[in-house]
Each structure stands twice: as C-alpha cells, then as structure tokens.
C-alpha cells in the first residue's frame, strides 16, 4: 500500500441506505493521486459511458468528498468536493479549507463517495468505522450558523452518551449545505465552518438533490503512516518558515486586493464588469483591519499563513453580521461588483451569502448580471418582484439573494446561475442578454479580469480551462507554469492549500509527495503524463455535456463578450483585447494539450495516454 493514504474509501448509497468500504489499486492512486484527479477518474469510470444523459441533480450523479495523500501533512488542510457539475455539466475539483479531510483520514477513510438520493433529509455521522445515516428533518432549512451549532451539539451529545469514559469530546468536523443547496440552487456551495465554501461547480445543489444536509465526521486515529517522517517534518518546517516571512499574506490575506486589484492592476469586477477599475479608498484593507476584523489571524489545520480573518460588524444597521475576511473574491463579488464600497456593507452581504449557503462568487456574479439588466431597463422593478436593484443598495441585493436561495419569483430564474438565467430571460424578454453574462461554460468568471493583462495575463485563461470561469484553475502556457491548471491539478489532487506554496520552489510539493508516499515524481512527469490525463478526462466530460446543455468549443471556448469591450476607465482605459489574438493563442494552447483545431482532444493524444475509451466516446464529437 502506498503511504500517506488511510487505505479505503467509504461508499454510501442513500437510496439503498447502505454503505461499504471500497479501494482503488495502487496504479490508480499513483496515476490520479486523490482529490480532483481521482474524482475525474471515478466519474469517468462510473458514469462516462452515459455521461450526456446523467442529470447532475438526479440520483445517478455521484457526490465525492476526497482527500489526497498530502492532506493533513502539507500545512493548510483542505478537502476536494466533486461530481458532475450542475453548472458546467463537466467535472470541477472544488476544494474547501478546514479539518474535514484530516478528520476523515483519522477516521480511516481517504474519501466518501455518495450515490443515490435519500427519501427524506438525512445527514451522515461517521465516528471511525461507525457510519450512520441519520434523520436531518430537524435541521433541514436551518441556515449556516444554526446548522453548525445544532450539529456540533448533537454529535457531541451522541459521542458523550456512547463513550462516557472518554472525557470531553472535541467537535466533529462538518460539511453541510444551507437553504440554497436544499433548494437545488445551482450557485449553492458545500460549506465548512460558517463561511468556508467549496463554491465552484455548484455541489451544494448536488448535495441538496440527494437530500444530504451534512456530513459530520470524528476520527480518533492518527494520520496514516508516511514513508519518511523526518523528511515530512523538515518539509513542513520549510513551508512554514517561508510563510512566516510573508507579512502581506499573514496580515491581510487576500483582503489587501479589494482595493489594490481595482486601483493597480485594474482587473476587479465593478458593477458587473462594466468597469474593472476603482479608486475607492473606503475599500482599503486598512478600513477592514481597523473597523471589522476581530481576529486577524485565522486559519485551518496546520496553516502558517492564516490568510483568513474574522469580521464582525459592531455598529450601524448591519450590527451583528459575522463572516470571514471577506477575502478578495467576496470583497469583489459581493462588494465592488454590486457597487458596494464599504466594509460593513460588504461583511453583511457576505454573511447573508454564508447563511443561505450560497457561493459568493457565483451568486455575486448573477446578482451583478441582474442589476445591469435593471440598469438597462431590460429587467423592471415588476420583473424583480418589486425590488429596485440599484448599484450599491446592499439591502436590495440581500433581499434578492434570499429570493435566489429560496427560488422565489425572479429568484427561481436567477437560481439557475448566470448562463442559464441569461437563456431564460432572453427567451422571456425576446432580447439577447448574453452580452451581460460574465461567465465561461456555465461558471461565473472569478474576480480576476484579463483585459488589463496585468493580473491574469493569459487572455485565453478562462476560455480554455476545463473548469470554465474558475479562477483557481486557468489555462496557461507553458503547461508547467506554476499558474497553469495542470499544476493546480496537483495541489487539488494532493489536496492541500496552495497558498502555502507561494514564494517556494515548485519542487517542494513533489518532494513533499515523495516524503509522504515514497513515490518519486518529477514536475515534468506530472505535467506530461498524469496531469495531462486528468485534464483530458475533464475536457472530455465537459464537452460531452449534460441533458440540458452542451458546449461547442468553437463557440464556447471563448471569453465572455464583455471582455472584448474596451476598458472604460482607469490606468488602462481604452485597452482592448482582440478576438483574433485570443483565437491565435487558444490554438497554440490546443496544440500543447493535444486538442484538434476545434478543441476536441485528438485520438493520438488520448491513445498515447492510455485513454482509449475516452477516444471512442469522443468519436461522435469529431
């Protein structure tokens, strides 16, 4: 057995109310590692032959919670959530911070595969090898903070009653959904703690479709044996020492960017990306630091950086609102993107998003989209159920977010996410509103614009990514560049926080992998064979699509229309991205990853990688 793994996965069938332990061969684990890579492999093997017909929100879909060999060892614990995405109809490796992955490994599992759907709301309670499917009727419809409090109390009481000799039980680690996930909102997240979210992919909706409110796990064992404990300890120290020197990341996290990315690189969404520049000093990190951050250093298992901050509004109409940070993405997406430029309003919006169990990026994207349609008179106050959705009106946006989470009125349309909502509204109104949808393949683009070419410099970043608008997985050349999605796939397959890699040589992660697993792996080998396989699998499933829609790479391997408008303001005012340039670079990228001129993985590429069955499945697209 390869070191670093607990050695088995838990498979739960919610329809049959049964569960069992399953394993994967050493070869599969060597090739796909864990997390995102293994998710692509599992989904392809089990659903690939009928991928197009699988409804992501139906019982056939699988919901995966996967650790990787580095989880718990590499500083900064995470867990990877995956399945067929109700946003892209492909596969997204969506990771979230916290102790869940560590607890799971300590309970003896490398991951959980959830199949089927429960008749009534349930949650899973795992204590080492004891697995229970428990009723969740009493916690269904609770918001994030209520869910965490109720489950923490309930599970500790269960543990106390069952093991009275133990002493005080620490809380189990919990992943859960809020009302948005329960209502199968496509922008719903799988959440940890109160505000940590696996947002990209829309797996909160998948969890809701299975009526699975939460998973609580308590693992009392040690993390698995590693190949070289002294090596692991030395590498942990190296990673930590590097992070300790990074004053910016430790002190401000990504929070410094809410002002900076707008003012300096001019690549921040402002009012649904109508601009990417602002110079609002009211949104400087110092304002957050001094006014709302009550805990400035907050992190997850083993983390030396603690880029998270705890924010509480102490006074004013939003008094009592609590969230983390907000981090850059939420400062942007439920801040500047909605015309909101004060920390208290931003914290309140983020707390509303958290409580409802929404993804802040995807929901901020669709809220901005709706507000622009209101600005242009394409959606009226009547269409919006009486809400005047003016830029900067925090309470109006919060009201609409609630409608989305509960699928009420206009919220039922916006709950489909920006792309699907644009199709519906276009049909309803008889006008093309797609020019205002800032998304790629059903996934709202992360808060890093490409037009200034100063932040995310690759103008084909999102267009060619196998995870669409996901800013944590972008296309980039050369393929072994540290920002390339082939490299990101390593972090998300080893399953740890890549923020703790900043400033270090990229070989550290492969050294870490070797010290944990005992397997030698070079960056070159990773990129050329292993990551390449993962990317091809993800690409294949993305292109095969789903029952409601399918992507044509000739049309959809592209930027949102907005990114071809000249930047209207700021230091790069007037700058334009030419589509011909995007097309040229896109084709260069296709060449490197072995796709044909239409963007379909070539037969020879797939066969060389041993993916003959994928090749056969893609025959119909060629």
């Amino acid at each position, binding site marked *: 057995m390869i070191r670093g793994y607990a050695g088995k996965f838990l498979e739960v069938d919610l329809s049959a109310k049964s569960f069992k332990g399953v394993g994967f061969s050493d070869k599969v684990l060597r090739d796909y590692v864990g997390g995102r890579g293994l998710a692509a492999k599992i989904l392809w093997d089990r659903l690939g032959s009928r991928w197009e017909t699988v409804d992501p929100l139906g019982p056939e879909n699988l919901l995966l919670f996967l650790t990787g060999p580095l989880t718990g060892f590499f500083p900064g614990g995470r867990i990877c959530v995956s399945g067929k995405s109700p946003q892209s109809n492909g596969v997204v490796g969506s990771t979230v911070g916290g102790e869940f992955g560590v607890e799971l490994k300590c309970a003896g599992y490398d991951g959980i595969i959830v199949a089927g759907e429960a008749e009534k709301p349930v949650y899973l309670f795992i204590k080492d090898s004891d697995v229970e499917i428990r009723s969740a009727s009493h916690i269904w419809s609770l918001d994030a*903070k209520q869910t965490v409090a109720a489950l923490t109390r309930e599970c500790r009481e269960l543990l106390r009653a069952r093991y009275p000799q133990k002493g005080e039980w620490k809380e189990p680690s919990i992943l859960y959904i809020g009302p948005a996930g329960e209502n199968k909102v496509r922008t719903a997240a799988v959440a940890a703690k109160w505000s940590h979210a696996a947002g990209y992919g829309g797996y909160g909706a998948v969890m809701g479709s299975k009526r699975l409110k939460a998973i609580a796990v308590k693992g009392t064992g040690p993390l698995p044996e590693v190949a070289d404990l002294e090596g692991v300890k030395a590498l942990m120290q190296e990673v930590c020492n590097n992070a300790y020197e990074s004053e910016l990341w430790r002190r401000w996290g990504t929070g410094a960017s809410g002002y900076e990315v707008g003012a300096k690189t001019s690549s921040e969404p402002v009012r649904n990306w109508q601009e990417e520049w602002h110079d609002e000093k009211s949104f400087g990190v110092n304002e957050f630091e001094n006014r709302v951050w009550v805990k400035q250093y907050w992190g997850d298992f083993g983390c030396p950086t603690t880029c998270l901050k705890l924010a509480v509004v102490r006074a004013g109409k939003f008094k009592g609102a609590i969230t983390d940070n907000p981090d850059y993405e939420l400062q942007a997406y439920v801040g500047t993107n909605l015309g909101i430029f004060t920390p208290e309003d931003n914290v309140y919006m983020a707390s509303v998003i958290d409580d409802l169990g929404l993804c802040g990026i995807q929901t901020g994207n669709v809220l901005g989209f709706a507000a622009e349609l209101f600005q242009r008179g394409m959606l009226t106050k009547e269409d919006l159920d009486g809400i005047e959705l003016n830029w900067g009106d925090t309470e109006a946006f919060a009201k609409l977010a609630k409608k989305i989470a509960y699928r009420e009125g206009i919220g039922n349309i916006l709950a489909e996410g920006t792309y699907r909502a644009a199709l519906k509204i276009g049909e309803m109104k008889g006008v093309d509103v797609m020019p205002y949808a800032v998304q790629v393949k059903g996934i709202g683009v992360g808060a890093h614009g490409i037009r200034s070419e100063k932040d995310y410099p690759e103008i084909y970043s999102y267009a060619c990514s196998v995870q669409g608008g996901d800013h944590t997985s972008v296309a980039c050349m050369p393929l072994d560049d540290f920002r390339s999605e082939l490299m990101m796939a390593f972090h998300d397959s080893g399953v740890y926080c890549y923020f703790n890699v900043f400033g270090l040589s990229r070989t550290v992660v492969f050294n870490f992998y070797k010290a944990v697993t005992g397997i030698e792996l070079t960056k070159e080998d990773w990129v050329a064979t292993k990551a390449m396989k993962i990317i091809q699998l993800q690409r294949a499933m993305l292109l095969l699509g789903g029952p409601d829609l399918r992507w044509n790479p000739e049309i959809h391997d592209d930027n949102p229309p907005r990114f071809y408008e000249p930047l209207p303001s700021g230091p790069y005012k007037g700058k334009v991205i030419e589509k011909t340039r995007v097309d040229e670079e896109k084709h260069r990228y296709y060449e490197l990853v072995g796709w044909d001129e239409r963007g379909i993985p070539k037969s020879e590429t797939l066969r060389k990688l041993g993916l003959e069955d994928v090749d056969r499945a893609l025959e119909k697209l060629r």
Partner: protein
Amino acid sequence: MASEEKTSIWIARDLSKCSGCRKCEIACSLFHEKRIWPEASRIRVFMLAPGIEFPHFCVQCEDYPCVQACPVNALSVNKETGAVIVDSSACIGCGKCIEACPGRIPHMHPVENKVLICDLCGGDPQCVKVCQEGLWNVLWVVPRGNYSYKLYARTPEEIARDLAVKIFGEEGERYV
C-alpha cells in the same frame, strides 16, 4: 531555558488570540506519539463555534485535584516542572481524574486504556515552541508563581461561551 534551570514552569495563555492552526496538536502528538494524531494530543484545540478556537490543556492547579482523585496512584506531580505525570502502566482508565478536574481537561487516549495529561514535555513544551514560531503568542512559558492557576481550569463550553461574547459581542453565546 527553564529546562536547564529546572525551575517549575507554567504555560501562560491568551486564548482569544488562537488562530485555530492546531500546530500545537501536531507538535504535541509528533513529540509524544511520533504521529500526527490530534485526538491523542495532550493539548486539544476545541472549536465549539467557528472562529472561537482555543487550546484546552492542563493548568497544573495548586492543589492538583486530579492527583488526589486517582484511586490507583497513577498520577503524580513532577517536582521539577510541576507537571502531572501519568504512570500509564498503573492507570486503569477509570476517568476519576476527569471528574475531579474543574475544567474536565484530561481525556482518554483513543486506543490505549490510559488518560492523557500535559506533561510539559519535561520542561520544554513543544506546543509553545510552534505557537511562538508562528508569532501567534497564544502560549508562552513563564516561571511558575504563587497564583490561582485553577481559575484557568474551565470546561470547553464555559471557555467557548465567554470567548464567543468577547469576539462576537453580546449575541455570541447563541452560536455555541
């Protein structure tokens, strides 16, 4: 430092600063168990509500009620460090020390039939080292004085409720 001079030490603590990084658990279990094993750590970070993580570990009460309560004399006080030492061959895992502790701090080893109590690593506590290294300053070593250390021995719920009010404000308790 303290270990060389062999004076009793105490781990001073500012719980509200805890980042929740749990490096203390990692360091403690690596030192005592040669594994990363949070549930076997003598210092445990509780998170009864997100954002109010804090380390829970022995305070070395002046009157050592746990030692007094042990029916088999498995607990003793190390004169040099002031730490409670568990004789794991003598411990019967009865849990009397847990009941006696005003903070219900000792807990059972997850697989062995013995109780776990902080032994101050013989005078050079590993948890303090990593906490200092990370500049969190939740934990630091001071010479043991003649103070009411017992005041610090409180249950996880008691600590969590207080910290929740301190950190979140008047409504904080409802999240615990």
